[in-house]
């Protein structure tokens, strides 16, 4: 049994267990879910430890260099003269996915721990949670576009119900907005996927294929096909490959989210229950970033190189715009949501630089933001669970009544604003290094972009420190008065168990970035090399 396959489908096994258990055992569901995520974490750590590095394991556009691969024919129809329809169950990982995969497993454990707050309809909740778990894990492992798309779409369904049924006051609105918004991006992706399928032929079998790695090789495109590099086809008067890139980019940019496609995010976060916020911010946004690197740029490298300026610009706009919006927020969760927009902007900027530093920085930033946003949303959930309020101005002097909580918030805030020693610093700094270096290496981005983006770091400090000052310091003054004061007890054991490892992780990645860079470097170099090939 392939370990990746096992990793992807283990949650379903546990989900079936929950499904057949009587509802009277509902108190045990959360433990089963936690066990599932822990088993996954153990497996992904095993994968991480056994992940081989070296130039021979770069991956990217060399199928043989992927690791933990499994390839099974899945849908294999004989279409007569049109050849065979070839859809494979094809999973495997390289450096681009390994770090995100481990981060995903880790975040899911925390999300499972955060699910203790769910009180109603537990069976449905945990089954949906485990389906979501399978889908997000699958996305990072799929190498067949069809399979990727299925996992990608499969994420939406449980999320829709998780937000719509267990969310806050305006949950239905938020859920439908989230669902339609992201679906909007992905339906068009389907068209491009089919177009690519019809353009690419597997050189070994001569069939059309959904294999993403073969889509990266220009030689596999048929002559005169829609997306063939040499065929110069047009769609509505635009270059077909340009349109293909744009559509895929929009689909993933909605997930990231990139300004101006981000407005689903604050609503979804504010209404979602804590564990769903954690999965949304910690994992789902990374699917967008991962998709941009692997799918958009991987399949359309020359379009990406030609329009990197615009990608970088969108990154810079997201950084500054997100930060300014975060500064204006009065709701803690919304503030964190906008800060996510700002931080994910660094990912786009780093990717757009198309340099090794920028790409590594972007991956690091994604991993780091996965942990940090998990921590931030978990912390926001702590206070919401106690008094059902998140207004920044409704609290004052929390440091005096919840010292331990304040300590974690301080760590999370400072780590997020890029204090050296924590992972976000490495991610942001090297995204900027890449963006800045880009001009002299490949001329993709002008120098000023990095300079402007660094303003985001300043604004980041402003909104985080301002929030700290308003909510946590000063004399105790709560909107809810004495009732709140008794309700606001310091962190309990479960919360500390969730927060402590997260702190350790962001610290470890900040002090030893080689934990990530060591594993991804060969792939990043292979990717940069691949980009220069075309």
């Amino acid at each position, binding site marked *: 049994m392939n370990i990746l396959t096992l990793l992807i489908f283990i949650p379903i096994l546990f989900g079936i267990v929950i499904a057949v258990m009587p509802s009277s055992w509902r108190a045990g569901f959360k433990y089963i879910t936690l066990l599932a995520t822990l088993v996954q974490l153990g497996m992904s750590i095993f994968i991480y430890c056994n992940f081989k590095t070296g130039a021979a394991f770069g991956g990217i556009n060399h199928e043989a260099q992927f690791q933990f691969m499994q390839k099974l024919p899945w849908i294999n129809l004989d279409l007569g003269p049109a050849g065979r329809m070839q859809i494979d169950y094809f999973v495997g990982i390289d450096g681009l996915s390994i770090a995100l995969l481990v981060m995903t497993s880790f975040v899911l454990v925390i999300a499972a721990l955060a699910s203790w707050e769910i009180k109603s309809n537990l069976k449905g909740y945990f089954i949906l949670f485990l389906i979501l778990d399978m889908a997000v894990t699958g996305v990072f492992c799929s190498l067949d576009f069809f399979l990727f798309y299925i996992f990608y779409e499969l994420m939406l369904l449980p999320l829709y119900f998780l937000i719509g049924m267990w969310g806050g006051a305006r949950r239905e609105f938020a859920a439908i*907005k989230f669902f*339609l*918004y992201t679906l909007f991006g992905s339906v068009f992706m389907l068209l491009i996927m089919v177009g690519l399928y019809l353009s690419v032929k597997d050189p070994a079998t001569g069939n059309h294929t959904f294999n993403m790695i073969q889509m990266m090789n220009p030689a596999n495109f048929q002559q005169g096909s829609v997306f063939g590099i040499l065929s110069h086809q047009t769609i509505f008067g635009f270059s077909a490959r340009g349109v293909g890139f744009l559509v895929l980019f929009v689909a993933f940019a909605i997930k990231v989210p990139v*300004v*101006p496609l*981000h*407005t*689903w995010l604050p609503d979804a976060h504010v209404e979602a229950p804590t564990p769903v916020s954690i999965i949304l911010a910690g994992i789902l946004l990374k699917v967008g970033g991962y998709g941009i690197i692997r799918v958009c740029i991987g399949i359309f490298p020359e379009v990406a190189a030609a329009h990197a300026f615009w990608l970088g610009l969108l990154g810079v706009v997201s950084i500054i*715009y997100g930060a*300014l*919006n975060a*500064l*204006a*927020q009065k709701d803690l969760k919304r503030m964190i949501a906008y800060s996510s927009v700002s931080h994910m902007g660094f990912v786009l900027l780093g990717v757009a630089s198309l340099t*090794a*530093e920028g*790409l*590594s*920085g972007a991956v690091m930033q994604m991993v780091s933001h996965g942990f940090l946003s998990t921590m931030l949303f978990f912390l926001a959930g702590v206070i919401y669970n106690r008094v059902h309020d998140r207004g920044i101005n409704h609290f004052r*002097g929390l*440091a*005096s009544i919840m010292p331990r909580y304040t300590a974690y918030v301080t760590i999370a805030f*400072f780590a997020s604003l890029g*204090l*050296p*020693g924590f992972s976000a*610093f490495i991610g942001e*700094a*090297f995204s*900027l*290094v890449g963006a*800045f*270096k880009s001009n*002299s290496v490949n001329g993709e981005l002008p*120098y000023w972009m*990095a*300079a402007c983006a*660094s*303003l985001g*770091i*300043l604004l980041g*400090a*402003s909104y985080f*420190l*301002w929030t*700290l*000052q308003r909510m*946590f*310091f*000063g*004399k105790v003054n709560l909107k809810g008065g004495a009732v709140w004061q008794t309700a606001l007890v310091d962190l309990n054991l479960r919360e500390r168990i969730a927060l402590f490892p997260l702190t350790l992780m962001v610290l470890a990645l900040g002090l*030893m*970035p*080689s934990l990530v*860079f*060591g594993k991804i*470097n060969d792939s*990043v*170099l292979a990717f*940069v090399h691949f980009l220069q090939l075309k």
Partner: protein
Amino acid sequence: MEHFLQSIDALTIKFTLIAVLLPLLAFVINTALPAKWSKVAGWVSTVFILISCVLAAFIFSKVWNGHQVHQQMLWFTIGDTPVYAGILLNNLSVLLLLLVNLIALPVHLYSTAYMRHDEKYSRYFAYLSFFCFSMLALAVSDNLVLFYIFWELVGFSSYLLIGFWFTRDKAVFANKKAFIMNRIGDIGLLSAILVLFSMYHTFDLDTLFGQINLVGHSNIQNGLWHLSSNSVPNDSGAIVITGGSIQIPAIWQYIAFAGIFLAVAAKSAQFPLHTWLPDAMEGPTSVSALIHAATMVAAGVLLLGRVYPLFNDAELTFLAIIGCFTAFMAATIALTQNDLKRLLAYSTISQLGYMVMAMGIGAYASSLFHLVTHAFFKCLLFLVAGIVIHQMGHIRDDNNLEIDPQNIQNMGGLRKKLPLTFIAALIGGVALVGLPFTSGFLSKDGILVQAFEWSAGKNVFFKIIPILALLTTWLTAFYVARLIVKVFFGELRVLQFKPDLKLHMSDGTWQYKLPLVLLSVCCFFPFFSTNPFSQDASWVYNGLLGILNETGFAMVLPVVINIGSLLIIYFAYTIYTGKRTNPFAQTGVIFNLSFNQWYFDSIYQNAIVKPILNTSLVTFWFDRRVIDGFILLFAKMSVALSKLAAWMDRNIVDGFLNLLVKAVRIIGNFARRFQGGKVQYYLFSMLAVILAIFILKTFF
């Protein structure tokens, strides 16, 4: 022999590592300490810093004026770029290493008494140790990435300590302001690092500015910043560029400078980023002594020292102007401040201005020399201030008064109550003014002499700089005299409106006295030089390769300066002891300008902070109304469209069907009538049909 030397170096590196990491260990221990043992924290930190200090002295003795020791290991690789972590020990590093330890040790000792009754005693020492760790590591970092990391950690520990009493709103505002101001500088430094890295592809300080000195071998030609490989010495062993040359537009050299300048201005509180330092005085006074007077604020000057080869003439002149202006501006503000710590803070800003100016006029060694001497006497003055404030606080608490214990208008006559503190204040004050036989004389007059020499060959406008600097010295003499007279001479002014006060004041325990004595000793010339009148004879100065030309200035100027200072001190003494009426009006534009600190805070608040906050509100409005509004409009349009479609479906598509049905029904009803079951009707209709066929047949 070679081997022996290497093993000595390895030992030095090991000791450096220990000296740097000990405070970190203290931080970890104190953080983890259970509450009931919190009193141990002070001694943990103090003992660790003592060991660190001893090690630093050893390292200093090995490296000072010896050869540079540099060791690094691979930290991580990103792309093709290896990033190293390492230790660079040269004269500048070990001087700072020793200085920070020497200042930190008495401050730790002092803190064990000063913070004794604070409920977060262990937290305090944890933070203090963390600061020491960051600062020591900053001093010995061998590359720009590490330097940046510790640079920011220094700012972070300062944030923690300024806001140590976090229930006070002022403290929390102050630490936020300090951190954000410092962040501006951090971004400057980061930008400079980006520029340097993209130009030279290395972060290594030694390669960039040290022995290989890539930066020093670059020049600006035809609008390009240029480094050709053959201009780099080959014997250094570690050639970074292979063949060809590197060039980027010259503007980036200036941007790198601008970034460095911002960094320096933020950390060392230079105009225009100086306003955080006076506010930072909300922290415990012992913290102000260590961080905001002696060490952290010196980091900016250290940075200037590190990257000195980067600057060209125009940039150096810019530094000189800014430094000089800052020195003068801060001194004028210090003249009218009544808050003891704020006054000292402005004095610190002013002295830092001297250091930056000294860097600008090429007095590299003097600048760093002044950094060292200033650290001792300013730290001393702050410790004195701490004792005074503590005692005034006791008076307030014992008698339930509503006075500000930091306001010097309430003080007076303390020289009899606190004799040792008074002597220490006097020594510190005299050294700050720079009177002969003190360390301040050696360093400060050296700077002034060189400022005059620097301007000698230049345009008349350049004369403004040394003259302003000279004026600043005299202003310094005035405010120092005002401070000391107001605090220590005359009678305690609180007694004037409340004569029956209970007073029991003393210099305090040995933890207070010993630091004062130690630091006082270090304020005199023998600690630095064998000759009380010559900077040349100073080991610090020589170790940093300072060369002083013995020109006329060096002979005459110190005499003029000091006679002037003495006269001003006497003048101030007579005013503030009441022997002469105060000739200066306490009103008017100039007084208000000084008293309100040149209105910088309100200008920044109105010109920068508010617009940014307003912008953020506007972007949020834009986000909700325009971007999200568009999405909602889209959604609404879809709904409207679907309603239209539903209407069409019901009324047109379905309507057509309904119409059809109706038509069928009408026709059916019509046809049904022919099936009435009566024979006559059947015959009639048969006839009608036959007739119809016949007619059709006939005509068509």
